[in-house]
């Protein structure tokens, strides 16, 4: 067929340029290949894109690539075309023209959609700076600022002002009332840790003592306010020592610097004090000064360095009781140890008082009459003992049957024989003499005097008095020594009882013994760091409440 191909080119200044090309071929091929009848030099066109045939029915167009062919706007694979039809082949617009005489077909072709400018497109596709992305420093800055202010400043303040709002935010991942919490509450106070207002009663006001006294009404003084009006104590509120929000551990101040700032120069600060200066248990602590009984009703603090003697009125040689071979007892030799007499109190810290019964009377039976071993005196007051002894001899004399040849006949008579009045008086006279003779033995070394200091009563002849035993309940009442926490040691490590022959010995270890294991605040590799509060308390029970309970207004000074 004869086909007229017209290439239409638009001119920059308007108008068009037509370039005709007459093709004679059975099939007119459109494509990028140079051997195509219609050469379309564009990378978007296939080597062979479409073909134009002349058949009996007319002029057919057929796509060889399957796509990118439209006839009058409709995508087709092949179609019968007529003059006037508008085709699009890739970026080219093709118009079927009415053929002139002698020509089978005529088409005009125009590049309608040229490739865009590569550089402009490349610039458009490429974002070459972070500023060109959605990331904006300014926007992000303000967003974060506002977010943090809302979550961590506005929300907690709103929660403070409105309990309802606080409740509402309880389920939020960031809780308004805990975002400000600077640390864990101590275990003792944890049960009300959700109630900030219990302590923080006013905003921008430090926690006041009255918040503490609300519970700790009876918290005691540290120094006797009558003797030591230490103005300095006013400065210290509860918070000076007891800081909260610092973890679950107790909030008792263990740093001894607080104590030492007064106690290292107490003699100057409070000249009336009986306390000695101290600064550190390891370096500068005075020798222990136990409160010992120095005489009837007299208790004094005497330094262990001065070998204190306790006038307890009791006789007890520890060494005799702790001999390795054991002591003689009704049941043979018995090895004694400290625990025979010294039993820890239920709390385990201190020892129970030692009692005659049942600790001593297993061996020390109060018998005095060699002929009457069935007679056993009770552990009681001297007057009762004297009365009992006299009664025993009276009864013996009146009953008769005494085998002492020096005794009157009435006393030696066969028991059950009736007594005349003179005989009775004889017998009682014997009994009185006998009991008077025995009294020094009863109150002597073998019975009462074995343990007690007994003397004849100068006011009442024939009577005896026993010095009242006085044993210090606690030799070191100002310090706490928990026996239970030293259970890994044996008693003899501290108390030299096996070498003590006298009950006047105060069997406390000197401070050097404690310092074998304990040092002061400074940590040492092989010693236990011990500060003032390891043994001493700040609030002293015997000094009464620190605060005026009625007004709850502050430190009590008078």
């Amino acid at each position, binding site marked *: 067929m004869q086909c007229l191909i017209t290439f239409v080119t638009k001119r920059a200044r308007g108008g068009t340029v037509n370039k005709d090309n007459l093709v004679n071929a059975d099939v007119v091929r459109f494509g990028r290949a140079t051997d195509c009848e219609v050469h379309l030099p564009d990378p978007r066109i296939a080597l062979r894109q479409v073909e134009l045939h002349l058949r009996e029915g007319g002029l057919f167009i057929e796509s060889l690539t399957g796509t990118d062919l439209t006839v009058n706007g409709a995508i087709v694979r092949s179609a019968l075309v007529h003059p006037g039809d508008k085709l699009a082949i890739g970026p080219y617009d093709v118009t079927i023209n009415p053929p002139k005489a002698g020509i089978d077909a005529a088409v005009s072709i125009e590049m309608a959609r040229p490739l865009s400018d590569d550089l402009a497109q490349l610039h458009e*596709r490429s974002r*070459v700076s*972070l500023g060109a992305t959605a990331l904006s420093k300014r926007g992000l800055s303000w967003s974060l600022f506002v977010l943090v202010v809302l979550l961590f400043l506005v929300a907690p303040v709103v929660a403070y002002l409105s309990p309802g709002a606080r409740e509402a935010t309880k389920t939020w991942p960031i809780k308004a009332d805990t975002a400000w919490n600077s640390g864990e509450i101590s275990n003792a106070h944890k049960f009300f840790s959700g109630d900030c207002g219990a302590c923080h009663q006013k905003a921008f006001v430090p926690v006041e003592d009255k918040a503490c006294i609300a519970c700790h009404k009876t918290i005691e003084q540290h120094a006797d306010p009558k003797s030591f009006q230490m103005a300095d104590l006013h400065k210290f509120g509860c918070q000076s020592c007891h800081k909260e929000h610092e973890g679950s551990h107790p909030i008792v101040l263990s740093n001894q610097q607080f104590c030492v700032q007064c106690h290292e120069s107490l003699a100057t600060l409070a000249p009336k004090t009986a306390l000695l200066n101290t600064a550190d248990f390891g370096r500068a602590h005075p020798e222990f000064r136990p409160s010992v009984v120095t005489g009837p009703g007299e208790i004094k603090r005497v330094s262990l360095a001065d070998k204190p003697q306790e006038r307890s009125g009791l006789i007890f040689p520890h060494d005799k009781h702790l001999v390795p071979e054991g002591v003689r007892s009704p049941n043979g030799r018995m090895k004694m140890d400290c625990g025979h007499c010294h039993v820890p109190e239920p709390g385990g810290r201190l020892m129970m008082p030692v009692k005659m019964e049942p600790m001593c009377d297993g061996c020390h039976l109060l018998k005095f009459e060699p002929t009457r071993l069935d007679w056993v005196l009770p552990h009681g007051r001297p007057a009762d003992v004297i009365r009992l002894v006299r009664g025993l001899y009276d009864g013996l004399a009146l009953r008769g049957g005494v085998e002492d040849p020096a005794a009157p006949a009435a006393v030696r008579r066969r028991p059950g024989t009736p007594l005349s009045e003179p005989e009775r008086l004889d017998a009682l006279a014997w009994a009185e003499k006998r009991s008077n003779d025995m009294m020094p033995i009863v109150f002597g070394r073998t019975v009462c005097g074995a343990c007690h200091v007994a003397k004849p009563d100068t006011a009442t002849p024939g009577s005896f008095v026993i010095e009242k035993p006085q044993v210090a309940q606690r030799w070191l009442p100002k310090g706490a020594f928990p026996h239970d926490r030293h259970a890994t040691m044996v008693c003899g490590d501290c108390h030299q009882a096996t070498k003590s022959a006298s009950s006047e010995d105060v069997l406390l270890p000197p401070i050097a013994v404690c310092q074998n294991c304990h040092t002061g605040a400074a940590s040492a590799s092989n010693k236990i760091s011990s500060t003032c509060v390891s043994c001493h308390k700040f609030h002293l029970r015997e000094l009464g409440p620190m605060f005026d309970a009625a007004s709850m207004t502050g430190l009590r000074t008078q």
Partner: protein
Amino acid sequence: MNQSILVYRRFRYLKLALLLVLASVILYAFHQPMRVPNGGTWLGYTLGTIGVLLILWLMWFGIRKRRYGGGKVMLEDWLSAHVYLGIALIVVATLHTGFQFGWNVHTLAYALMMIVIASGVFGVYAYIRYPLLMTENRRGTTLDQMLAQMAELDRECRDAAMGLGDEINRYILASSQETRVGGSMWRQLSGRDASCPTHRALAQATGLAAKAQREEAAAMRRVVTVLQRKCDLVTRARRDVQIKAMLDVWLHIHVPLSFALLAALVAHVISVFFYW
């Protein structure tokens, strides 16, 4: 120039920062608080106050640097001091905390501050290292010139491939129409594009060139040569964008988190005295 910020005035601000650090450490070492060290002791308040003032001053640098020629003190002084005192803040603020941390606004402020400082330290590193790499990478051209060359090569490649098969033409068309430099923040920072159309086209062309015959082979070799040049350009252009992004990205953390820090700091200070 960049180096000189660190050695500026013979390390004057390094010495100042070291002095601050040393003073803080010595005070902390000899400080014996009643209980555990924390922000509430006299030293804690002192270090905290120094920290707040430092942070405000460091943030003022963002304003000062925009005032060209403003102020009596040189901008270099400001930057040198900004760097060294900012790093010194790590010690001052850490000692202020007394090593007490928790899930709260106080530790939030600390964490934000540490991230801001860390990003700043990276910024110092970037400003020392990347400009050299950038110069090396550019080989005397600019990014715009590289892009123009790429566009030129696209045209050249299309012309060379005009007589070649449809498949390679599709790849080449994609290379010229879809290749991009940079893009999202991640693409810019990574400096690569796993599905780069130019590299795909080169791989395809190389494969086809091996099989091509006669005159097609000559055209194919030309296409391969052009695509290789374009690949080299694309890689260098992406590296250029990457280096610029590295020089820039830390500021996108440094600045916004500084503002978050400022907010957390305000909340921290207010909260501490609110619940005194």
